[in-house]
Each structure stands twice: as structure tokens, then as C-alpha cells.
């Protein structure tokens, strides 16, 4: 049953979304250290599930995509496809030194430069691997963006970065194909 698109229902959906963000984790070619720190967030010591942050297996159920590791050439198009499956509003966290900047793998033959050459990234988290509290802080920062975007009626006010080499309004090569 679809809710009628009135101001009140939109307000309700955005309120619920900010109270319980669903997260999906995608390892695009990392060493699994960041993934282990994400698992540490779910374990009883931090236990983010009590705040409503749920890790879901499917990107179609998720509001936030956490990308760990530098995308390899083979993973780049798959990562893009995972991102395209997520419903709006969607947010991307590039986790760890490799996800945020490429890290020690930047410039090698089998990788693209960083997550940002594949997706528009909202939050970067440094560290190798980042601590669980930094990961939780990144998700909470995304929620702040979500609330602000809902107040402004979309993401356009933040002037989201385009893919490198693209003019405004131009379609990315994957969208064209």
C-alpha cells in the first residue's frame, strides 16, 4: 500500500528514515580489515542495532552504501550497478584509506583511482582501518545530511559533485549503455 504523497506522509517517511537507517556494505577489493571493524560495530560492545542502524544484504533495501577498499577494474562496473539499484535518497560512505583516496594501491594496474571515480561520495572516513566509533560517526553524519536534504527538498542544493570529466546534465557512460 503506497502512502499518498502529501506533506505529512513525506514528513513521516523522512522521520522514520532518519531514525532507522538501513546500511549495505560492499567490499570492492579491500583487505577485509574495514569489514571486520564494521562487524565490530554490530557486536555487543558497540551494538549499533539498538539505535536502529541495520546492516542489510540487499542494496534495494538500503539507504546508505558503505564502500570498503579501492575498486578494482572488474569491480568498478559492478559497484556502479549496486549503487544504481539503491532507492533515493541514497548516501555513500567511502570507508578507510583505500576507499577514500586509493591508499597504497593508487596507480596500480588493476585498480581505478578511488571510489569517487565510480560514485558520488558523501562522507569520507580516514584510517586503516577506521575505528568503530568513526564508522558510527560517519553514519550519523549521513543522517544529518539526510535531514538537511529533506528540509531542502532534494540533494541539489549541496551541488553534488559530478563524475570526473562530466559536464552538468551529461549522462555517465554506464547510464548511456
Amino acid at each position, binding site marked *: 500500500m503506497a502512502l499518498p504523497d502529501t506533506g505529512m506522509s513525506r514528513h513521516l517517511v523522512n522521520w522514520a528514515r532518519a531514525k532507522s537507517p538501513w546500511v549495505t556494505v560492499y567490499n570492492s577489493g579491500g583487505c577485509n580489515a574495514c569489514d571486520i571493524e564494521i562487524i565490530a560495530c554490530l557486536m555487543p560492545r558497540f551494538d549499533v542495532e539498538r539505535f536502529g542502524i541495520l546492516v542489510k544484504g540487499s542494496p534495494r533495501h538500503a539507504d546508505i552504501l558503505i564502500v570498503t577498499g579501492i575498486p578494482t*577494474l*572488474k569491480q*568498478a*562496473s559492478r559497484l*556502479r550497478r549496486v549503487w544504481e539499484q539503491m532507492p533515493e535518497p541514497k548516501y555513500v560512505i567511502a570507508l578507510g584509506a583505500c576507499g577514500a583516496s586509493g591508499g597504497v594501491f593508487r*596507480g596500480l*594496474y*588493476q585498480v*581505478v*583511482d578511488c571510489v569517487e*571515480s*565510480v560514485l558520488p561520495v558523501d562522507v569520507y572516513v580516514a584510517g586503516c582501518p577506521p575505528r568503530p566509533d568513526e564508522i558510527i560517526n560517519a553514519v550519523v553524519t549521513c543522517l544529518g545530511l539526510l535531514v538537511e536534504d529533506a528540509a531542502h527538498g532534494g540533494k541539489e542544493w549541496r551541488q553534488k559533485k559530478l563524475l*570526473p*570529466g562530466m559536464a552538468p546534465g551529461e549522462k*555517465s*557512460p*554506464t547510464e548511456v*549503455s
Partner: protein
Amino acid sequence: MIRPVTLDTITEKMKEFGSVEQVRKNRIRVKTVPDKLHDAITTSQAVLGCDRLITISTVDNGETFELLYHLIGPHRIIITLALNLPRDEPVTMTSSALLPPAGIYERQIHDLFGITFTGHPGLKKILLNEDWPDNEYPLRKDWKPSPGEFYGGIKVERV
């Protein structure tokens, strides 16, 4: 019972294929040539009991490509068959008929170093991206990444 092999036995059996030297405690290297490789593999399998292939490693030492076939048996002695290939024409015979796992290693070496193994049943890409440009072999010493190429629709700057 596992029959131990000694350096003397290996030297006696393998000296017709090239020089034999002990590089480490349980590693013995035989410097052979591409034409004698199949006979050397057959001898180490049948006579010396080295029937398992650990890996094929490749070294680009600037002048030649060095192929190293590491064979091991139940006696835990590793026999390494080393051979050199010229850089301008890196072609050798496949050993996938003698050692079935060698076919996969040879596909990897063909991807990364551009060494052609004649007689291989399917020398296709195994590691690199589907749209990787031909005649570019990333583990060669003289390879430089070419910036600004598209891979799967994504531009790679490589800076």
C-alpha cells in the same frame, strides 16, 4: 614408506638437462633449456617422485624472462626447473598435458607477462579486465600505465 632423495641422486638423474645446484636446504634448482623441459618434468615425476606442481613463477630480469617450475613430492624436496626465454620472442611449449594445473598458471603468466605457450588448449584472459588493451602486460618491467583510459565505462587517471 617415503623414499628420501639426496642431492647426489638428483644430480645424477638431472645432469643431462642442465646444471644442478642446491639453493636452500630443501630446494634444488635445475637450470635447463625450453627444449628439454618436458623430459625434465617427466623425469622428476617418474624417477624422483616430484609429482606435484606448486606454482610456476616468472621473473622479468631486464634481459630475459625466467620461468621457474616448482615441483614437490612426498619427501618435501622441491625441484625447481628454471629456463630463460628471450624478451623479444617469449614463446615456449605448454606443459598442461603433463601437469594439468599448469594450464591455469600459464594463462596467468600470459596475462601478466605476455609469454605465449604454444599448444595450450585455451589461452584466454583469466585475471585482467575484459577490456584490457592488447599487447600491454602489466608485470613487465618496462610497462607504464597509460593515463586517461576507460575501463568498463569508468575513466582511470592513474595519478
